[in-house]
Structures are given as C-alpha cells and as structure tokens.
C-alpha cells in the first residue's frame, strides 16, 4: 500500500460543510439529506406535492458545483476525468441507481445522516456498500489488471 494525494484539510472542511448542509435541511424542512432518496422521489414520484423541494435541492447540488468553479476554487476541474470507458460507466450508473433504491440510501443518507442518528440499519448498509466497493476496486484494478 502506498499513500497518495492525501488532502486532509479540504477533506475535513468539505465534510463539515456537507454535515452542516444535512443539518440545515433537517432543521428547516425536517428531511434527511439522502441524495439517492431525494433524487428517487423526483425520478419516480410516490407522493403528490412532494417534488418541488427535491428538485430545488438537486438544482442546488449542481449550483454548488458551479459556484465552486466560479469562485476559482476548482482549478483542475477540467483535469477530472472518468476512470473507465462508457460501457462500464453505464453499468456503474445502473448499479448505483438500482442498489441505492433497493438498499434505501447511499453514502449521504446512510453514511452521514443514518450513522449520525445511530441507526443500526444504516451501519449495516454502510458496511455493505463500503465493503462491496473495496472488493470491486480490488477485482477491477488488481485481479482484472485494468490500470485505471
């Protein structure tokens, strides 16, 4: 194992901002900031009149990315590249969509909000997707030998 590109300060500041955003959504709207759940309620709505705030939250996510770049903090955004080809991206997108809906949450809903509420369900979910992702990277990078 080699440790590479460790950026502890931006990681902690960014993480704290994410935690604040989730806390603010709970304080203001009484909702959990689980991205896959919020997006799922727009892509396949289950309740009438429960879509507007979801659309705005998602628009905010994109806008937050824009503001970061507009402030000139995103020097290097143009260097960010997908790490696999399009067929694998499609497979990945499908699996992320299906898995987060079946498992009722993703990194934000289970990993940050659920764990903060000490939900055993979210703890198991987080261990499952982290473990699965680590095994997948091991298979793709080291067993299949794809140099990503």
């Amino acid at each position: 194992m080699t440790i590479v590109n460790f950026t502890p300060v931006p990681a902690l500041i960014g993480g704290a901002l994410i935690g604040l955003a989730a806390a603010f959504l709970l304080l203001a709207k009484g909702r959990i900031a689980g991205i896959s759940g919020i997006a799922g309620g727009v892509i396949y709505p289950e309740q009438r009149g429960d879509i507007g705030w979801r659309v705005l939250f998602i628009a905010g996510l994109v806008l937050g990315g824009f503001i970061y770049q507009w402030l000139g903090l995103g020097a290097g955004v143009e260097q960010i590249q997908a790490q696999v080809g399009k067929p694998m991206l499609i497979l990945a997108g499908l699996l992320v969509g299906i898995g987060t809906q079946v498992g009722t949450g993703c990194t934000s809903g289970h990993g940050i909000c659920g764990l903060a509420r000490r939900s055993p369900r979210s703890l198991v979910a987080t261990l499952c997707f982290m473990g699965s992702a680590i095994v997948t990277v091991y298979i793709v990078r080291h067993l299949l030998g794809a140099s990503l």
Partner: protein
Amino acid sequence: MSAFIRLFPALFAGILFGFGLSVAQMIDPAKVLNFLDLTGTWDPSLALVMAGGLAVNALVTPFILKRDKPLFAEFFRLPGKLQIDARIIVGGIIFGAGWGIAGYCPGPLITSLSFANSDILVTFAAFVVGTFAARWVLAHRG
C-alpha cells in the same frame, strides 16, 4: 407559507452540500477510487470527509430533534425503519459494486453535472434509468 419560504431552504441546503462535495474533491472519481484501493494507491482523504460530515451532523442533530417541528415544515420525517433486512444488505452490495467500478456515488454524480461532459451525462442517464427501474419494480411487486 409562501412557495419561496417552503422551497428556498432546500435550494440552500443543496448548494451547501454540492459546494462541500466539491471542496472535499469527491467530484474526482480518481480520488474516490484511490480511497477504495486499500491494497494499491490509497488516498485516505475520503475517510476524513465522512468523519467531518458525520461529526458535525451527529453533534447538531440531537439539538434539532429536540424541537417540536422544523422551521419551515409541519413535522420531522425520519426513516422509521431501524431493523436490518435482506434489502439493506443486497442493495448495499449492488450499490457498492457500481460505486467501485466508476467512483461515482449519487451526490458527487449529480454535482458533477456542473461540468458535465459526455461521460458524466452517460453515467447520470444510467443512474436515472436504474433508479426508475428499481422503484417501478419495488412499487409493483406483490
């Protein structure tokens, strides 16, 4: 309550969340995949992103939930289900496989639409299709 008051907090929370993901560089799938690559080129940064988010949220959440109701809504809507079932395990494993292949979980994927290229658009489209299909099946079974 005016539509503005009802909706603005969600927009603000989204902006702060997307900005935080960008600062944390979680919008770079190479960085995410390196975090998951424990036996290769390991980048521990993402652990601190989660630790930071979790610490702030865990600290503040109990005080928020002491309130009778949220500032701009009638009640708190928390996931009531706490028990562990097969869905949570199977779903987690499927999601993790997708996350490990490309390095995109839903938040960073959506935030990355701010500099969308064809790769991000294709991944996002597949995420939408997967989400729709799973929710349709879950809503129509039995």
